[in-house]
């Protein structure tokens, strides 16, 4: 008799907690994998595809699924470090095989620039731009919205007349960095 009571009591407790867990899993269901969103937030969002995935979100998904964390060339070491912190893995050096083009080699931010007199208006770069930062129509000159350009380099290759080049953003007082080690500038006029 005691055994039956014990089984009943334990069984009812188990059923009670099971019900609570079941309810919680339905009530507090998380749709997206939150780790993917967190990873996506760490990536530079250039959507350049240098990692081999079509955009930053797919790469974030892949990293969450166990892909190597050192494939983001535009993000560089900083991004790798952040991802390593988040994923709890070792920091790895950047995988050089995923560095393409000039854009990612120097630290200075670059944007694409259309040499407008050479543009034939083929719209190929517009189709390549992942962030719709190129304005233009068929047989009309194209130009790049510098503020929207992520410097991903993707528009350079499709151009049949090689009229797109990556240019460094000019130094202005808005993006100027104090540099104590530099020799003081002396303007001669």
């Amino acid at each position, binding site marked *: 008799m005691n055994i039956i009571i014990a089984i009943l009591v334990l069984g009812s407790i188990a059923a009670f907690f099971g019900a609570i867990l079941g309810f919680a899993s339905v009530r507090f269901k998380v749709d997206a994998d939150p780790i993917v969103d967190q990873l996506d937030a760490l*990536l530079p969002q250039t959507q350049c595809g240098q990692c081999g995935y079509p955009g930053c979100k797919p790469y974030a998904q892949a990293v969450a699924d166990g892909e190597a964390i050192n494939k983001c060339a535009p993000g560089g070491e900083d991004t790798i470090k952040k991802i390593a912190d988040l994923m709890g893995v070792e920091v790895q050096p950047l995988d050089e095989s995923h560095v393409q083009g000039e854009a990612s080699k120097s630290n200075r931010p670059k944007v694409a620039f259309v040499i407008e007199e050479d543009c034939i208006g083929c719209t190929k770069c517009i189709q390549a731009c992942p962030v719709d930062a190129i304005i233009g129509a068929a047989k009309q000159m194209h130009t790049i919205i510098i503020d*929207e350009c*992520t410097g991903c380099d993707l528009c350079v290759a499709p151009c049949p007349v090689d009229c797109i080049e990556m240019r460094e953003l000019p*130094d202005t007082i808005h*993006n*100027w960095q104090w540099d*104590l080690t530099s020799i003081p500038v002396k303007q001669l006029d």
Partner: protein
Amino acid sequence: MESILERITRGHFWDFHGGIHPPEQKTITSSKPIKQLTLPKQLIIPLQQHIGREGDLLVNIGDKVLKGQPLTLSTNPMVVPIHAPTSGTISAIKNSVIAHPSGLTQLCIFLDVDGEDTWRKREVCTDIEQLSNNQIIEKIADAGISGMGGAGFPTHIKINTKPEINFLIINGAECEPYITSDDLLMMEQSDAIVDGIKIIDKVLCPAFILIAIEDNKPKAIKALQQATAGIEKIKVCAIPTKYPAGGEKQLIQILTGREVASGSLPIHSGIVMQNIATCFAINEAVRHDTPLIRRVVTVTGRALNKPQNVWALIGTPIKFLLEQCELEPLENESQPVIMGGPMMGFCVSSELVPIVKTSNCILAPDKVEMPSAFEKESKEVECIRCGQCSDVCPSQLLPQEMQWSAKAKDYPQLDKLNLSDCIDCGACAYVCPSQIPLVHYYRIAKAEIREQQQLDLKAEKAKVRFEARKLRLEKEKIARQEKHKKAAAARKAAMNKATPEAAGAKSAVAAALARVKAKKAASNTATPSVSETQESDLATNTDNDQKSQVSAAIARAKAKRQLKNNAAVKTSESNDANASDTKTTQQQVQSETASTQPISSDDKKAKIAAAIAKAKAKKLNKSSEANSADEVDKDIVTEKPSVQDAKKAKIAAAIAKAKEKAQAKNKAGASSKADEATEPTQEVAEVSSTTTGNNEGGDSEVHSSPALDKKAKIAAAIAKAKAKKKLKEANSVESESSDNMKDLNEEEKNSSEKLSAQQPDESK
């Protein structure tokens, strides 16, 4: 509230944490009146002199402008316009060094001063009571007034605030050890300043107005007390001298005992602060319709013979001010010039740097008073953890901790240490026994954090745009698929309708299918039949091509066979007879090829294939019948018309001919002497006929299709030239048979003329 005022009237103030007492150098300039300068020759007016963005240009190079005329247009509240400080001509609009520690250039207007100082038309307002608040704010905005204390925040935004204002604080503390510009302004223009304060009072309606002046400026305090006598609302507060009492948050703490929370603005606590010079500028703008085109600048330092405060026009190059104050030039060393005060200022990179709305001091120190400005390298040594920096920090931060984090670029840690609350006052660096330029490290870190924030914003924007684009592409794809589906359905429906049109369309499609099938079958059957003949390779070339090609090939094959038969019969006859006979056969063949031409005329591929086939056929002929070369030659002549307007075919033919000639010559040399006489002549005849034919063909080509490729022609010409050379050689060797040659030449020419005469008809 009451207690604050009571304390203030009793002269008791709160204190802020830290602060320093650097040696006062105000006496250098404070005893001299503000000097009116002569006009400089050229003014350099930067388009952007405040926090925000530059306005749209209103003037062009070469324009004559009057004093006070706006040079840029404000299209946005964060844009402050600039005005011509005097009359003159715009000589250039280009990038020039600006008053910024980076020494970077920005767009500046170069104004050549004409010296007349002619004003534009001004509307003096005698009674400000008639103006509405909006009108006053508009006037302030149009006058281009931005905070003149240092930061340069647009004033019209600052005074256009809605919430209830408890205190309007007028900042006349001027805590930097050298600067006396506000001091002098208060002494000399106290009434105008009070008028300006009244205007702000009318707009903001604060509960109380406090004018804060450090107690090291007794004359200024007295002047303002006199000017505000009888105005209940305004209290002149003589605050204890301590650097940086002039900092916005520090001054609020001194006066009210309230601390402005980290990340919030004074306006959130119901406090608005304005600089003394700004109040003066507001009065000028609203009452006298005078935009902000000049300001008081303290030009000081022991390197100057006449340090003093001057009224400097905005855009005056520093060089001019230093000359006016008689700078002692240094020998073989450049004079460091500091813009702003010694505590917060920066070394300017060029003497062409202009005075802007925020520049209150130009400091030219000598080696004794400021040796650090002359040193090229920093004397920084390791931090000894003395903690003096945190003792003097007015924001109660931990400068030493921040320094380490800044050097390690540990930005999250800097954020935890509240780097953003640092006011760059430089008190920590001033007291540091290790001479660490602490503020520089903070500035670098701040700039980098700001940049990182901008990058994050940009990344966020890029992400949104990328997602939007993906969505759009997806939608477009679906729409396209739908459209295609609909179109297919419509076609099917139209086809299945029982109307006669539909039936017609159906039958047309069926007919087309049938044709395609028939073509396939024809090409399959053509292959074996042709391969039996000599020109098996011709057939293989064309067997997968169109019907027309096949038929053309068959026609040519027939013609050749006929020719050969004829030639075989007449080989024993004389050359003359042979020639006359070939003429007739040529004509026959001509008619045949002419009949095949229309079919293949517009098919380039077919022509090329035919040309290749011919070349091969010729070779075959040569090898099989070495002594009947004349027949082959004739063969070529007869086939020539069929390829007249095919440039590629021509080239191929020319090359083939050249080869063949060479071959023929070799064989001729080996063959019997009787043949020797006829062969070269035949060759000459052939070449002449082909060349004329080619020429004619080329002409007709040019006429019929002017867009023909030049290259092809050139290649053909080269081939012809080569052939001619070879011919000449042959001629010189066999000069004995010249008579025969002539005869033949003539006859062949005749025939070729006939051919060329027929040519236009065919091409038509």
